[in-house]
């Protein structure tokens, strides 16, 4: 369907990748750790390696969680936009198929949040 | 399923007469006192009669005067010079 309007209705997406000055948006969701209220939204360079992303982006973002010290993100279960995903630390974001506004979901079996509450 | 209509008034001097009049004309209505407000609910129908209000107040009363003290309502409204009715069909 489309908008019912008094004249022709045209609109541009506000968040096209061109608007991010060479960077791209990425969302990361760590299930069963709802102490972080929603998935994170971060900006990454398309040529950043997955290994750098883990060290420089993901780990600092989750550092305040008591489970973070025990989380082995490389051995975790990954999904990219709801499809199974195998991380390769040396591949870039682009080569890993992680495009603008993609979402990564990383599940760490055995870690179920504060006192196992999913928080 | 029960289908309740309701009306809520500010808990002030005017409202006390309104509540008295409503209780007299709608004996089955339930009156709930909440912080700063009075809420009255009844099954399907609730009526405020001008005559009853005038008796309570001892003066002429215009049905629209209740607009000053009412906070909220639930139900279809039917108003004329003599009464204010809330109802579900």
């Amino acid at each position, binding site marked *: 369907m489309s908008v019912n309007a008094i004249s022709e209705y045209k609109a541009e997406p506000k*968040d096209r990748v061109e608007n991010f000055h060479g960077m791209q948006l990425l969302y990361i969701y760590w299930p069963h750790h709802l102490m972080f209220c929603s998935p994170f939204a971060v900006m990454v360079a398309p040529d950043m390696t997955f290994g750098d992303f883990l060290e420089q982006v993901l780990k600092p973002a989750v550092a305040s969680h008591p489970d973070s010290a025990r989380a082995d993100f490389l051995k975790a279960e990954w999904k990219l936009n709801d499809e199974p995903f195998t991380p390769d630390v040396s591949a870039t974001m682009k080569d890993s198929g992680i495009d603008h506004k993609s979402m990564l979901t990383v599940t760490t079996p055995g870690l179920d949040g504060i006192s196992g509450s999913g928080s | 399923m029960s289908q309740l209509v309701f009306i809520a008034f500010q808990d002030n001097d005017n409202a006390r007469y309104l509540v008295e009049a409503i209780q007299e004309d709608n004996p089955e209505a339930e009156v709930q006192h909440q912080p700063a407000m009075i809420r009255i609910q009844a099954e399907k129908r609730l009526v405020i009669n001008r005559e009853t209000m005038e008796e309570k107040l001892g003066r002429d009363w215009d049905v629209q005067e209740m607009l000053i003290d009412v906070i909220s309502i639930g139900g279809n409204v039917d108003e004329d010079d003599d009464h204010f009715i809330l109802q579900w069909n």
Partner: protein
Amino acid sequence: MAVKNKKLNLKDKYQYLTRDMAWEPTYQKKKDIFPDEDFEGIKITDWSQWEDPFRLTMDAYWKYQAEKEKKLYAIFDAFAQNNGHQNISDARYVNALKLFLTGVSPLEYAAFQGYARVGRQFSGAGARVACQMQAIDELRHSQTQQHAMSHYNKHFNGLHDASHMHDRVWFLSVPKSFFDDARSAGPFEFLTAISFSFEYVLTNLLFVPFMSGAAYNGDMATVTFGFSAQSDEARHMTLGLEVIKFILEQHEDNVPIVQRWIDKWFWRGFRLLSLVGMMMDYMLPNKVMSWAEAWEVYYEQNGGALFKDLERYGIRPPKYQDVANDAKNHVSHQAWSTFYQYSQATNFHTWMPEEDEMKWLSEKYPETFDKYYRDRFEHWDKEQKAGRRFYNNTLPQLCQVCQIPTIFTEKDDPSMLSHRQIQHEGERYHFCSDGCCDIFKNEPEKYIQAWLPVHQIYQGNCEGADVETVVSKYYHIKLGEDNLEYLGSPDHQRWLEIKGLKPRASKPGSEQDAA
């Protein structure tokens, strides 16, 4: 000889106002005078069927409104003269007012603009008069709310730039975009959105608990403006219900259009009210009723009666009503968690509930609070006491439609977020729920242009790249004064001084540091 004028009855007076002062145009086409009446597909065959049950005429309107204002301002004066702010339950309460002033009062103004505009669009005089009166009411609400809160602005932080913040601050894009969505729709959708779905179905959940809460927390100024505004609301709600019945009775083709609008605006309103839920459960030191209880009375019970009444027109209760009913046990906790962790970017303070409040939450939410939220809160409380107050330093993902961070969980699995994603014309879009995702799919062009605060910061459109600069320069929130934790804040210190207690940084109630 003068004939004594017979006093007109209500029906006659209203007839004169709405029918006999209107006229049929002769040298202009009606279509040219009211060009926007039919592009939404709503078919009106006979405007004379329009009924306004209140039959309020202009003279009566001015008379009663003047009386309301006189009563209201007498109380404002008394409140200010008696330093009424010193008699509230606790200064934490004022944070609810900060949220109200930045989040709700600007919506009153938006409503004024909205009704002034659509009041021009209808060829039926009854609808025009009702919209005109409501436009004036809404302007009054916006003004009286600002007057009432100006007293608090003299004594507490965070109330100094409400309309500026409304246009910029991340969470205020939630109420702002809600109203902008309605105001940029056609006149009939606007009335379905605001008069019916918001005012009739949901507004009780905003004003009634808020004002009872103000009464319970000693804030007579707010009680009075709230109830004074609500006294107009009875009329607005009636307009909302009459409008729906009128449209549905005019033509059967209107039914599916109205149903889609009801589905959309129920969901949008429900999401918006998450903010009210957290206010009730967390921001009122003296609690009136829980959000879940309010939802049961004002939506499940009253809304249930309403939708039963509308059944005869072929209207069913809103889609995803079951999800909303289930969420009554979760949303307030989820919203408070969010504001707690992003309090570096709010114009109000947040805090963890005290022991007795945690107990109250467990009692009011026996199925959910202990199981899903208590551990999180106890952990944060411990961290705070150890000098490591938790803030989330990474920005959140936002829903493309409601613009709330995607914080909500699945109805059948509260341990998982109800995140949804779709692709539209090569772009990815993310949503908090099926409800918001459906709204997008119906009108994608409208929502692809959403001004999402997180993305705008990343694009460099908010005067800075780091949160501190954005918050102070772009939002006008004073760092360390308006934002962050309540305990130890300037508001907290000031309150202890007002109450004659020694300022201290730890929790009141832990008596060790009292001399």
